[in-house]
């Protein structure tokens, strides 16, 4: 939503956007008061029902335990992953390796994506050069260029981080350029009239005003990066969640695969929560706006 509406340079459109998002967030809260069962309870119930179905299907032996191990087996395997580990590393070591790769890729893509995004939105020439490149990279599935990256960068950490960073770059670049372009011209004019220099405008006006959009971009990038991770770890890793899942599947230890999937979902959830916390901390005016 932010990406699309903010792309318009018209400050009036932004005003409408804020107003409408405020209105939109107000409506569900009114509806929620009328509803008897809160959404959270419905979500929890869905989870419990699914768990019960899983339990029933596996205890009734409807399918072979190779295909669907029981929740108890998965829980036991979770414990043994924590204490003993699988394929020569414990669960925490696998998680550490994967998190390290995603965070390294995030740093790389922020370091490249922020300047590129600012350039695209402020310079006509830079936009002409960089925009086609970003648009070329954006729709490519990471699995398509993974073999090429391996030929270029080998099978070490570099190639894994490169693949993840490549998938994270487009959302960061696009949201940065959209955020910078959406800064109301009035803000810039006001700062100029007080005699602000170019760098002062960039740091004190454009940077804070575009932060919400950039944070949204990072949130999206974390999502795509995390899903690319598993693909990147399929090739020549010796540690990591994707590697653990693949090895588990090859040894037909399905419970390890299921634990891996849950852990990946859990971490993605945690990262999302962190990103939202960062949003509340760094751009509190958005939250205040929504809260009203």
């Amino acid at each position: 939503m932010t990406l699309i509406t903010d792309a318009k340079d018209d400050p009036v459109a932004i005003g409408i956007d804020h107003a409408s998002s405020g209105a939109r967030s107000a409506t569900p809260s009114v509806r929620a008061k009328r509803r008897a069962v809160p959404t959270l309870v419905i979500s929890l119930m869905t989870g419990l029902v699914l768990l019960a179905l899983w339990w029933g299907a596996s205890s009734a032996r409807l399918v072979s335990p190779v295909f669907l191990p029981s929740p108890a087996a998965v829980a036991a395997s979770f414990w043994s992953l924590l204490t003993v580990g699988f394929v020569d590393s414990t669960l925490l070591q696998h998680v550490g390796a994967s998190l390290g790769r995603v965070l390294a890729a995030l740093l790389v893509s922020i370091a490249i994506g922020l300047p590129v995004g600012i350039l695209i939105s402020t310079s006509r020439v830079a936009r002409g050069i960089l925009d086609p490149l970003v648009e070329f990279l954006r729709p490519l599935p990471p699995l398509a260029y993974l073999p090429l990256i391996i030929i270029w960068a080998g099978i070490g950490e570099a190639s894994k981080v490169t693949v993840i960073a490549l998938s994270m770059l487009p959302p960061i670049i696009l949201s940065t350029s959209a955020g910078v372009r959406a800064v109301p011209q009035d803000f810039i004019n006001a700062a100029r009239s007080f005699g602000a220099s170019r760098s002062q405008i960039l740091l004190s006006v454009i940077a804070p005003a575009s932060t919400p959009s950039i944070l949204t971009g990072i949130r999206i990038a974390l999502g795509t990066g995390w899903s690319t991770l598993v693909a990147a770890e399929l090739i020549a890793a010796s540690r990591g969640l994707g590697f653990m899942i693949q090895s588990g599947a090859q040894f037909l230890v399905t419970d390890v695969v299921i634990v891996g999937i849950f852990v990946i979902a859990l971490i993605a959830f945690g990262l999302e929560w962190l990103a939202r916390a960062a949003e509340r901390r760094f751009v509190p005016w958005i939250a205040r706006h929504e809260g009203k």
Partner: protein
Amino acid sequence: MISISRRMLAMLALAGGLSAALSATSSFAADVTINIGYQPIVEPSRVPQADGTYEAATKAKINWKKFDGGADVIAAIASGSLDIGYVGSSPLAAAASRELPIETIALVGLIGEAEALAARNISKPQDLVGKKIATPFVSTGHYSLLTALKHWNIDPKSVQILNLRPPEIAAAWARGDIDAAYVWDPVLAEIKKSGTVLATSEDVAKWGGPTFDAWIVSKDFATKHPDLVAAFVKVTGNATAAYRANPDAWNASSPQAEKIARLTGAKQEEVPALLKGYIFPTLEEQAGTELLGGGTAKAVAQTSEFLKEQGKIPAALSDYSPYVSNRWVKDAAKLSF
């Protein structure tokens, strides 16, 4: 669909005679499709595969699917997309330990020099510590590597074991990304040219970790089409017997070597040497208590026990005899072709 050569005609004539002989005892359905997963490994049954002898003997349509490792073959059999598959003893042990409905129908060969640990710039095993060793996970190579490391008192955690398939190992070796690899021919032959061999599977067998390759069938298919399975085993056994009877005839310029090279990607002039990397037991030898009659089940049990000890599989079974049978080699011996 197949270009008809004189050999082909001879084969068809042979198949005709064969089916006449069999028609009294069995009902070979012409519309049955057998999905067979093979691996590009240098062994005698590549020749009947190239000749279409299996199709002629079973009178079924056969989908040959190429796999680069036993783990993928097992996964395909588990999902029901394969009926018969070529696997090593280690994937077989992993699958049987998970109680997958499979059965070993015939042995291909006991692995000798066909699989080995080759390394670059490493002269003694202790230098492997901290190095990158590639091997296809779950494979016999992986198992032999773990056995060798244990024999040398090297903690597997002190080396970096990477999961790569043979073609990827060849590429990674060429790039210099890996220091060593436990892999099989024809990729092994390729990397031996610029590396030294630290241990072969023959050595590892002496250290208590024998490995072998085998054909397995999904139990469902075996129940439905026992005659097709027996015919398959018979054709495989014939190829082995032909090689055993006269190994020297399978020289570099022989049509056999050409066919094996075509299906496996090995160099034709290297085929005779690569064939010596295995000990190929005949069907009669396989039926005995040393092999399918009992010894093989014990070997699978030992392999499983080791994989469990290494934390690769969660549990091992107490008895592996339901997963190994000499019934098929015995049935095949009754067939006359």
